[in-house]
């Protein structure tokens, strides 16, 4: 961490190209620069897009780390300079797509390099690995999704100090893997998407220190089970048998998302139940969840898109004491099941039950899970209102009676706003109610949520009244109101909370471009998203999102067209001009027009219809 004056100096040094020119000739100072300052200066130059190959040269005596990830300019010229770095310990060029194998030649003789990340450098192939194989100091190497073949992987056997090796997405064969057995220091091995079979997987226990293993998307069917393994990923595999000794693996983390289980392994008897804290079973074929009742240490449990139902939630309640994350998306879980959990999950912070049939009764149960920070209720039957006339089970905690907002249209039925049950959640930060049946009035209780910072809504029945409530949520930073029928006048009179930084109004088809633009001029701190326009907070550049306006020529043409059409004010309130049927028929056309060549013309066409 830099001190304040060091930070000011870094800022001043990286102000512009000119300021760089002022110090780059000070050779003596640069040679004496302590490595942590050199690394900080390099980082700052990279983030300000001020680094170019020959400038790298001045750091060759000082820098220990270079992180150029995602920079598409990096090529052999950059590496010619990097090769001369005396003390370079870590080099990250992941995602530098221009980088070729021959560029890596410059790295070949380096004596200090410990870590190298070449992930997603698709032009790097076996020839590049040949250059790397002489850098025997390497301890961590990432070459996932490169052009390296099984032959290239075999060349890695000369890197005897490797402890971390990422071979994800490479066609590693059993034979190639067996040639890596000399890498006895290996602790982390990533082989997702490789051509490894059970034969190759049987060799894996020859790595005496291996604790992290990723075999996702392979044809391995035997679940490795030996005494060093702590973290295992076998997502999207078909798992039938156990591999290894009969002891229990000290697994802390098990990810078997999308896996198909055979009978012998589906009961997880081989797991040391006191250690497992992270279990991802999403999309897997597990039918019997009774094993869950033994997993007392669980903190993270993902059961989304499994066949779990209400009865199995009882099992989760038994082990809920340590649970912090629970995902039940896309399951048969109903409100009654969620009720089983109340009182048993004192530490639950994240609860996700979207795409289920839960209704408003669930909300009153959720209101009794005291540590919740994030709740996802999207795509459910939540209405936000419970009508007492209907025969719904009475929620355990009676929400406050409705404070009668002035726009209430059903005076005869006694209703309570279910969301008020969440007011007792002191830590609630994020709430997702997208694609529910929530109407404006149901949002009233949100205004008294003390910490709510992220709110997502998506419904065609949300109107300007929702904006009214949003403006009184005191800590709100991000709000999404998709597909609402917000109007220009509603947005004009909207007083955003002082904390608001992002407002996503995509699909609010009644809003026009100039009203959104003027809104963000009045509130420059807010980033605004809409189908017609995207205004980012940092530099206040207005970009038409739909067409990727790469050429400035086109944007200037659009501007000209805008200027040449007078009376832009006439579509401030389009509802007055069109009948409801006409508006509905235009809902999709305006979006598709916006997606056509330029949005300016799109609006004009709609107007002239």
């Amino acid at each position, binding site marked *: 961490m830099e001190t304040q004056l*060091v930070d000011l*100096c870094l800022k*001043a040094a990286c102000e512009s190209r000119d300021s760089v020119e*002022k*110090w780059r000739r*000070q050779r003596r100072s640069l040679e004496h620069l302590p490595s*942590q300052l050199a690394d900080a200066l390099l980082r700052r130059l990279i983030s300000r897009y001020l680094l170019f190959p020959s400038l790298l040269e001045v750091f060759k005596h000082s820098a220990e780390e270079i992180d150029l990830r995602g920079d598409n300019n990096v090529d052999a010229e950059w590496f010619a300079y990097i090769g001369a770095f005396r003390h370079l310990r870590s080099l990250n060029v992941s995602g530098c797509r221009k980088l070729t194998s021959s560029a890596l030649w410059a790295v070949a003789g380096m004596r200090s390099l410990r870590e190298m990340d070449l992930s997603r450098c698709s032009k790097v192939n076996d020839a590049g690995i040949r250059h790397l194989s002489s850098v025997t100091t390497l301890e961590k190497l990432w070459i996932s999704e490169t052009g390296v073949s099984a032959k290239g992987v075999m060349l890695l056997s000369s890197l005897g100090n490797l402890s971390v090796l990422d071979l994800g997405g490479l066609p590693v064969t059993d034979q190639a893997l067996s040639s890596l057995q000399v890498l006895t220091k290996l602790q982390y091995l990533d082989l997702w998407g490789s051509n490894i079979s059970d034969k190759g997987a049987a060799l894996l226990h020859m790595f005496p220190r291996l604790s992290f293993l990723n075999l996702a998307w392979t044809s391995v069917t035997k679940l490795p089970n030996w005494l060093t393994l702590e973290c295992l990923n076998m997502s999207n595999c078909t798992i039938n048998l156990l591999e290894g000794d009969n002891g229990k693996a000290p697994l802390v983390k098990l990810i078997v998302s999308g896996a198909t289980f055979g009978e012998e392994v589906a009961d997880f008897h081989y797991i040391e139940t006191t250690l497992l804290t992270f279990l991802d079973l999403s999309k897997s074929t597990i039918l019997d969840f009774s094993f869950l009742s033994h997993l007392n240490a669980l903190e993270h449990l993902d059961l989304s898109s499994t066949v779990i139902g209400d009865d199995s939630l009882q099992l989760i309640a038994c082990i809920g004491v340590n649970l912090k994350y629970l995902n039940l998306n896309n399951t048969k879980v109903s409100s009654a099941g969620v009720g089983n959990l109340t009182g048993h999950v004192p530490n639950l912070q994240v609860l996700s039950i979207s795409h289920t049939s839960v209704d408003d009764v669930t909300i009153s149960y959720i209101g009794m899970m005291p540590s919740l920070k994030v709740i996802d209720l999207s795509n459910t039957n939540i209405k936000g209102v419970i009508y007492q006339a209907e025969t719904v089970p009475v929620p355990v905690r009676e929400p406050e009676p409705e404070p009668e907002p002035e726009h209430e249209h059903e005076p005869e039925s006694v209703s309570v706003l279910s969301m008020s049950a969440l007011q007792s959640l002191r830590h609630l930060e994020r709430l997702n109610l997208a694609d529910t049946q929530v109407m404006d009035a149901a949002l009233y209780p949100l205004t008294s949520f003390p910490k709510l910072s992220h709110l997502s809504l998506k419904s065609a029945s949300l109107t300007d009244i929702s904006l009214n409530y949003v403006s009184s949520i005191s800590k709100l930073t991000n709000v999404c109101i998709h597909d609402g029928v917000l109007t220009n006048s509603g947005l004009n009179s909207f007083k955003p909370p002082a904390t608001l930084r992002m407002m996503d109004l995509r699909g609010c088809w009644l809003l026009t471009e100039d009203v959104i633009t003027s809104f963000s001029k009045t509130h420059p701190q807010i980033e605004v998203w809409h189908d017609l326009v995207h205004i980012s907070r940092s530099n206040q550049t207005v970009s038409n999102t739909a067409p990727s306006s790469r050429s400035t020529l086109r944007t200037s043409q659009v501007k000209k067209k805008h200027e040449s059409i007078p009376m832009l004010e006439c579509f401030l309130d389009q509802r007055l001009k069109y009948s409801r049927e006409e508006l509905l028929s235009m809902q999709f056309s305006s979006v598709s027009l916006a997606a056509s060549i330029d949005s300016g013309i799109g609006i004009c066409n709609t107007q002239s219809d």
Partner: protein
Amino acid sequence: MKKEDTVKLISAEGFEFVVHKDAAMVSQTIRNMLTSPGGFAETEHGEVTFPEISTTILEKICKYFYWNLQFASGKQTEFHIEPELTLELMMAANYLHT
């Protein structure tokens, strides 16, 4: 300015800067020198010599000390650093822990 409230900072070339102790103690390194009970020579004479820091840089450092005090008391002004000085000043700031 009483003598016991000040401290003398001496640059590589021998130039002396007399600054308030409060200001000098913006630097954690100087603070340690002046307050440590071990009896540094610096503590007794109220003088610190920096054979590695040139006059120009030490002058800038002293200005920063006072700017920092003002900044902390709520006067928000910009502290301008000439690009030519950034490297040397950065190293001095790193050494002085300020």
